[in-house]
């Protein structure tokens, strides 16, 4: 089988199917993941093919979902848990932060917690409150968790495979507004390491670093900038914990300018950490401060205002102009 074009949601579905097929210990758990196939249909058809014992519709209690997934992992299972929307994860935050993240260390390494928590995240779909948030920094801040987000179908397929194989808990943020975007999935390719960033567009004047839903925006910004004679490099970070600082450093040493873009609020966000680290690593290479483009320190706005809140092409290019003007 060669590369096949499919939507990001379908790629995750295929990846889950592959994992269920390969390992009887893999379980899918979540609200409405069974018959319905999840509110975004990411688990569509899996219960039909693998049964209710392996694709489990759960009670509507997020802490219960994650807490019982921990127990199943202790019994030797590899649960892949779906949290229906980003804003619904907080009832489970205690189980994730206090138990899931720390239990391996608490046991001095004697037990492992191979749990994947899938969270559709981010805005841009005109949703009601609590359905458009980007809480990745709240998880990346916690030692013991790994945090990743694919930007395209090919990565989604392989990153999910790698997350399920990981013996550490992985928070898997799925860019919900890209669920229907199609790209190539090559199931025979040998994927790169899960936590390595990838240059998706080469450039020489400035580096745009992004992940998940913002990679596409950055690619569009780079294309627009090219028309103005600016050569932007676009880096898909893919992983927010750990962050591939080496890749960012290598790019910045070449371009000497860095703009980090994410939907999440910039205050204490992924971009803040990257700015601090890259300032340390590349102090003598930088020709401008590291700039960030992201959400504001305000609750996610009602849908009619989300285009003002979310970083778009123009806001990214505005930051590019400010950086290059230094």
């Amino acid at each position: 089988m060669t590369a096949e074009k499919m939507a990001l949601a379908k790629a995750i579905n295929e990846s889950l199917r592959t994992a269920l097929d390969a390992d009887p210990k893999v379980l899918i758990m979540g609200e409405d993941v069974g018959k319905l196939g999840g509110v975004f249909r990411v688990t569509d058809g899996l219960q039909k093919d693998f049964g209710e014992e392996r694709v489990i519709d759960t009670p509507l209690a997020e802490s219960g979902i994650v807490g019982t997934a921990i127990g199943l992992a202790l019994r030797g299972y590899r649960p892949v848990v779906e949290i229906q929307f980003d804003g619904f994860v907080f009832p489970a935050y205690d189980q994730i932060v206090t138990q899931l993240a720390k239990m391996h260390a608490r046991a001095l390494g004697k037990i492992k917690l191979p749990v994947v928590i899938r969270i559709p995240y981010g805005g841009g779909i005109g949703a009601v409150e609590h359905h458009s948030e980007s809480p990745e920094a709240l998880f990346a801040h916690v030692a013991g968790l790994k945090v990743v987000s694919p930007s395209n179908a090919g990565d989604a397929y392989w990153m999910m495979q790698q997350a399920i194989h990981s013996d550490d808990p992985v928070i898997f943020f799925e860019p919900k507004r890209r669920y229907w975007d199609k790209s190539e999935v090559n199931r025979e390719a040998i994927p790169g390491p899960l936590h390595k960033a990838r240059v998706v567009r080469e450039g020489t004047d400035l580096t745009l670093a992004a992940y998940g839903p913002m990679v596409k925006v950055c690619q569009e910004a780079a294309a627009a900038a090219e028309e103005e004679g600016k050569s932007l490099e676009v880096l898909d970070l893919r992983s927010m914990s750990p962050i591939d600082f080496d890749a960012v450093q290598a790019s910045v040493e070449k371009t000497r300018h860095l703009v980090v873009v994410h939907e999440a609020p910039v205050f204490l966000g992924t971009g803040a950490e990257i700015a601090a680290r890259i300032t340390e690593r590349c102090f003598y290479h930088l020709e401008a401060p590291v700039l960030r483009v992201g959400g504001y320190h305000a609750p996610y706005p009602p849908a009619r205002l989300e285009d003002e809140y979310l970083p778009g092409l123009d806001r990214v290019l505005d930051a590019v102009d400010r950086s290059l003007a230094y």
Partner: protein
Amino acid sequence: MTVESTAARKPRRSAGTKRTAAKKPPGAQPDLVQLLTPEGKRVKNGEYDAYVADITPEELRGLYRDMVLTRRFDAEATSLQRQGELGLWASLLGQEAAQIGSGRATREDDYVFPTYREHGVAWCRGVDPANLLGMFRGVNNGGWDPNSNNFHLYTIVIGSQTLHATGYAMGIAKDGADSAVIAYFGDGASSQGDVAESFTFSAVYNAPVVFFCQNNQWAISEPTERQTRVPLYQRAQGYGFPGVRVDGNDVLACLAVTKWALERARRGEGPTLVEAFTYRMGAHTTSDDPTKYRADEEREAWEVKDPILRLRTYLEASNHADEGFFAELEAESEALGKRVREVVRAMPDPDRFAIFENAYADGHALVDEERAQFAAYQASFADEGEGK
């Protein structure tokens, strides 16, 4: 609603507890399962006698020995805290019967999810008591291998482990095994959402789990009345599984009721809630001061219901144990105290690089980087002799 009718809905304290009549009228506990009275008399119980019918004098002496040694270990740990050898200790004093009775009901392949006070259950599972002290001394955060005794790590955040127990039990059911899980928690934890969710999950998946609630009457300074207005065991009814209140100071009753509940689980009949009605004779932990919130009279009323005393009375009256047994146990008890003392005092501080160990199973680039920075920082003291 009259004052009396409000009071009537609340769980009643035992007779002899001195409280204002309007707030807590004296009266018998509702449906309390008891096989051995505080006076050490064996009383018949049609439902639960069967579960201890074949118990031998040797096993009875074993239960007694377990309780005595657990209490001795507990007292030693309290002393070690007073001597500065431990940072903190959570005493189980008064709860020996609840823990030994339920712990001895478990089978080797069953799995136990404790709070941080289940020293008696740990003893029954064969966990070396000295291992329990590492986290209270501050040399680790638990550290024993849960799978070597099917005894999970102590859980400090109240109630979280009931969900882990439920998930583990769901896994047992998926495996088609006939093992069972027992989850410990207390009256305070019964208010936690995680406990409620574990009741829901275990009920809808019919998971083989026993919820063993030690109602020791106090959640630090808050009485059970601050957690519930119905007897805790009655909560099970709303979730669709049975709940039983057992005399938590009666080791035989705790053994029988827990066996019954575990066997239900093994037969595929799902979860059970056992409320062991007991009393925390000591402070919440060594940092607590119960004189600020509860009366001596209440403790005194419970003292006559002591779990060890009543079994001793029974053993003596039925000629199941002689003076030699008690003397030998006394010596064993002192030897245990001595060994625990020595082990704790010899317990070394961990290597400073242990900070970074086991943060992840598969490693993490940032942890590697920070460990290297920490090592370089420590190495910078090399010419001053030992690293600071």
